[in-house]
């Protein structure tokens, strides 16, 4: 009951935040997106002031009263100082590099100081809203960035929840905070499981004629040199030994490539199968091999390169997963 109530309050808050602080890749902190309120310590401080006031009044001691009022004035100034300090920065989030399950994704928030006359000081507390992931970097003003490691427990593409940032500079009496939505998502790929390459030939529909495919430019054979052969193909070692000039013949790269398919591992549990495919995608990409991926009813045409690799891995991560908010556990 209580948890449901909490949940609905949280959702209500989220909707309100969505209107008040709409998602953006970069935020300039200002009146609109910064909240400020005395911290617990601030309330304790006020209580001390009240104590001093009572004491000063009862003893009719002006110095105590003056001390109390001085502390109150500091409190008041603190409000402005901390607000000014917090709004001196604009923030952006570095792209979160995709990770594999059981690794940690790095959330790196960049601080940009708007002008050198108005620097930012003090630490920053960063928390992933709605999770227990939090970190206080008390030297954020020096590092100009705050980092948070996110454990990757489950594969999938996750929306990143809002990031709560707070600062208590200079004396911790007030807490300035904001909830920012950088509109980023976190890709967690399945954990790679080492295995032999299993590529099916050109088309998955032709059945599972799995076979190894030799890498690109692998040396195949020698043949006698014919004029017109490129110089770099001449087997100079053989020539130096006094033999005839001969030309090295290489296996032509199989540009058409093969297919990786989930069906190959139909017998394995799903997560393991995805892990095996992840490994193979990585392996083939590192060999600059051309390959395609067929998973469920989704087919990615053969290609090569980093972008292709990530497209394949993303579809592996997303397989039978709906997009959801990242949760710490």
């Amino acid at each position: 009951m209580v948890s449901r109530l909490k949940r609905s309050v949280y959702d209500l808050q989220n909707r309100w935040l969505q209107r008040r602080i709409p998602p953006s890749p970069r935020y300039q902190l200002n009146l609109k997106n910064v909240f400020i309120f005395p911290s617990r310590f601030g309330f304790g401080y006020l209580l001390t002031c009240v104590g001093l006031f009572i004491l000063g009044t009862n003893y009719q001691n002006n110095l105590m009263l003056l001390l109390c009022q001085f502390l109150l004035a500091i409190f008041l100034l603190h409000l402005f100082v901390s607000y000014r300090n917090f709004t001196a920065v604009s923030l952006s989030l570095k792209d979160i590099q995709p990770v594999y399950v059981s690794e940690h994704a790095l959330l790196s928030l960049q601080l940009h100081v708007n002008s050198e006359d108005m620097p930012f000081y003090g630490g920053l507390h960063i928390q992933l809203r709605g999770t227990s992931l939090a970190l206080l970097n008390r030297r954020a003003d020096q590092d100009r960035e705050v980092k948070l490691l996110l454990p990757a427990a489950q594969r999938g593409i996750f929306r990143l929840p809002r990031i709560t940032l707070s600062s208590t500079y200079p004396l911790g009496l007030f807490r300035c905070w904001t909830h920012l939505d950088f509109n980023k998502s976190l890709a967690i790929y399945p954990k790679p499981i080492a295995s032999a390459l299993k590529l099916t030939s050109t088309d998955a529909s032709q059945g599972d004629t799995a076979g190894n495919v030799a890498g690109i430019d692998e040396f195949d054979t020698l043949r006698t040199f014919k004029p017109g052969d490129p110089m770099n193909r001449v087997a100079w070692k053989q020539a130096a030994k006094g033999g005839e000039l001969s030309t090295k013949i290489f296996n032509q790269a199989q540009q058409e490539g093969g297919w990786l398919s989930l069906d190959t591992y139909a017998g394995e549990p799903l997560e393991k199968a995805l892990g095996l495919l992840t490994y193979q995608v990585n392996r083939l990409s590192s060999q600059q091999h051309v390959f395609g991926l067929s998973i469920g009813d989704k087919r990615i045409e053969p290609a090569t390169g980093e972008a292709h690799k990530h497209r394949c891995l993303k579809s592996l991560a997303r397989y039978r997963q709906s997009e959801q908010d990242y949760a710490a556990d």
Partner: protein
Amino acid sequence: MQPIDKPIRNQTASALIALVFCVLSLSLFAPLLFWVLLISLCATGIRLVMYFGWYQPMPSLRTINLLGLLCCLCLGWFSLQIGLLLTMVNLLILAGALKLIILNRPRDLFHLFCTCLFVIGMGFTFHQSVVMTLFYGLLTLSLLVAIGRYFSPSQHLPWHIKRLSVMSMQALPIAILLFLILPKLPPLWKMPVSKSTETGLTDTVTPGDIANLTQSGELAFRATFTGALPPPAERYWRALTLEYFDGKQWSVSPLRKQVRKQYRLLNNEFKPRVSGSWWEYEVITEPTNKHWLFSIDVAIPDDLNSSQAIWQSSDYSLLSETPITSRRAYRVRSYPTTPMDQTLYSIDSRLNLQLPNNTAVNPQTQAWAEQIAADNATQVERVQAVLDYFVDQGFRYTLTPPPMPDHPIDDFLFIHQEGFCAHYASAMSYVLRLLGIPARMVAGYHGGESLQPDVLSVYQYDAHAWVEAWLDGRGWVRFDPSGIVAPARLELGLQQAVEEESFLANNQMARLQQLPLFAELRNLYSLLDYQWSRWVLGFDAERQQNLLALLLGKVTTQRIMFLMLGICLVIGLLLALYFIPHWQRKRPPANLRWFLQASQKAEQITGLERHNDGPEHFAERAAQRLSPQSARQFKAICEAFIALNYARDGEVSPQSHAFITQCKTFIRQAKAC
């Protein structure tokens, strides 16, 4: 997650707060119990050792709890002796010290910070001088620095000191405004007061006491007169009347206390009818923790506020409603020519004819009194006979009389014949009582140094005792036998009267006073201290009212409201002053400013947006939509701007008048096509 910073024990903040705490407890040396002080020093030591990393393990919480329990028990035991206030201070320091030892989490740091602030506040009950205020101010600043250092550890300490000093400087005007304007409330409830032995008069006087007081150079009170100062001989500052004599010492009569209590219950305050000329003055008294106040006879409170705080007793002394625990100011008016015959003779005579129960003490005196009574008939003659005796017998005035333990009055009158004011007053009062004349001893101060033309400073060494006797038809009349013996005492003050003796003998400082430079400095300091007590410590509800009246003319609720609003406004302005410069951007050079204005005008007229176009592009774009003349003008402006801003020999003058005029003309005349 991953630890990102050093633990608190290795942070400068912890060492700083430990040092502040240590200095703070040392400053409270007098009110603190020795072992409490010791514990706080140990705690500081432990903290520093941890900070430097010589020894890392933290004492376990269990140990500290046990230690705390033990300390509380001890303190409970001691609290019976030292009173509630001191117990409170000791407890605070103790709690702080224990917290300091187990300082581990940020929360502990905050607790300690608040405790230290509170202790500083408590410190003001014990020390109120300018120097100590500055000292405590510095301690407060150091506390702020310590906590600031915790929150931004990547900055250096000098940076923090600078930052927080600036912040404190900014806070001070606001604090002073609040101080001036926030209403001064009366005490909410009675607070425990310190039992510590203060120098000053006490409500029982054995002749030796006042002699001890004269060894003290501490300030007793200051009086600021609105008109001329009273002549030195008239400066008898009455504090209390001692009407009960037990043969050795004088004290406030229990009967008088009872009468006073009854009067208070009936709210029957003694209101003497006053007449003749008067002196008007304000007294700022040092804390005495007693009720009595100082005034010249016959005194009545001068204003409403003072009269609310003062109870006039029927022995012509003024009593404060609350004990004087801190410097207190009050205004009184003294009418020196008013006869003191307005009290009930029945009570006064009953009180002041009282004789010690033990008639075996001072037998010689009793015999002598009988003889005087036989020789003289009238009251006046009898009094004169006693005074004459002092003169005839060549009595000496001295600060160091021999001890007179058994029959003090006999020994004084007939054997040693030397003594101090209290001896004279005591002997004379006793003899007069024996002669059937109601007489009492009055304790107070006599004299006062003139600090400024209208200010008298009265020190403890000005303590004095004299005699009041009821003469029929005249009421209470003041007699000062020591004044007869040593007239210089009245005219020039104690210092001259006992010059041959070592005045303030124990006081090393007194020797320094002989140096002219030191005297100058001391004078300067007392002047400062005077203004301090007058304007800061003595700023009470009364002064606040005066200030408000001065500001508002007439104090009405509405005007007070306006004033409050005004103050809020002033504080707002102060804040604006502090913060707006930071928000302001640097002003661009004049040429650029005017060019931007001109192009803004062009944007308005044409409905185009400049985006991030440079001057040349924008001129081309805008020219198509401007009237031919305006287009020409605008193009000319752009060309001029380019020449000024970008060309090889441009940028020599960031402010070209011709160009600005051009821009202004365009802004005035621009038209679309």
